């Protein structure tokens, strides 16, 4: 069965920590981090490898801070 594997890369300089992506992520891959960026916002980090590359986060992200990859893996 083909399985989907995804990954998100967050641009920490652009992220403003609005957490809209955390709210819409179906796999709870994104969570608020503990560090602040140069603008003083607590940016979002990736906390697990369950990402399916659904692009919900990148669609809702107001600052286009998220790059998404998706690959089909045949098992």
């Amino acid at each position, binding site marked *: 069965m083909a399985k989907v594997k*995804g990954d998100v890369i967050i641009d920490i300089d652009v992220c403003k920590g609005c*957490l809209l992506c955390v709210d819409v992520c179906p796999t709870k891959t994104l969570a608020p981090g503990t560090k602040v960026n140069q603008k003083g916002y607590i940016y979002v980090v990736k906390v697990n490898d369950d990402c399916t590359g659904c692009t919900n986060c990148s669609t*809702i992200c*107001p*600052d286009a801070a998220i790059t998404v990859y998706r690959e089909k893996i045949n098992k």
Partner: protein
Amino acid sequence: MNDTLHLAENLVYKRPKTLINVAMHYCPGCGHSTTHKILCEVIDELNIQSEVIGVAPVGCSVIAYDYLNIDMQEAAHGRASAVATGIKRVLPEKLVFSYQGDGDLAAIGTAETLHTCNRGENILIIFINNAIYGMTGGQMAPTTLENMKSTTTPFGRNVRKMGYPIKMTDLVATLPGTYYVTRQSVHTPANVRKTKAAIKKAFEYQRLDRGTCFIEVVSNCPSNWKMTPVDSNKWLVENMLPFYSLGDLKVPSKEEN
């Protein structure tokens, strides 16, 4: 983590190239930035970066030209649609849009907006409605809801004293000059995709020279509503959407396409 995942062929989303790679000044979670982003995605997908001319308003999005890598012109407060009219008439082969907030379009610019739509100028008007004056600190706007608190209506908007919230989109939909009038929002991924499709359609109609396209985007204002971005989107669903109901108000009939 496997190594083939980050190949270019597996890339499903990246920042649109028309959106200049700087941190925008908007507050976290603001609908303005989402709308900028999808506008840039549409420009990238239609490959019209060199053909588009935008008109920036006065309001939160006053420096939109610092973020969109296209030709842009700043207009006086409320006059963006009038300036866009001029640009479109001089350069009819270009795709012209104005990007305006509710204080700009529905208050000081009501006359310009209505007459632009009434003349059926072949432009796209993007109207961001967050029911408040965001840039100046959260004063009541014409679109502020009944009983909604703002800095100038601390006890809620009293419609007997301050009038009723104005539905600009419903107003312009009644005018014969408009071709495509819709109200969308950007509070969920599905709605963002719908708004993007609407903007794309509007640019395509503009190429066909059919009349004014008017897209209202119901947006949040977390800072002036004094909520977190996630809460502000919930408030938007509970309070804004029952009054400003989403959907197409005027769509071209099938024969016309």
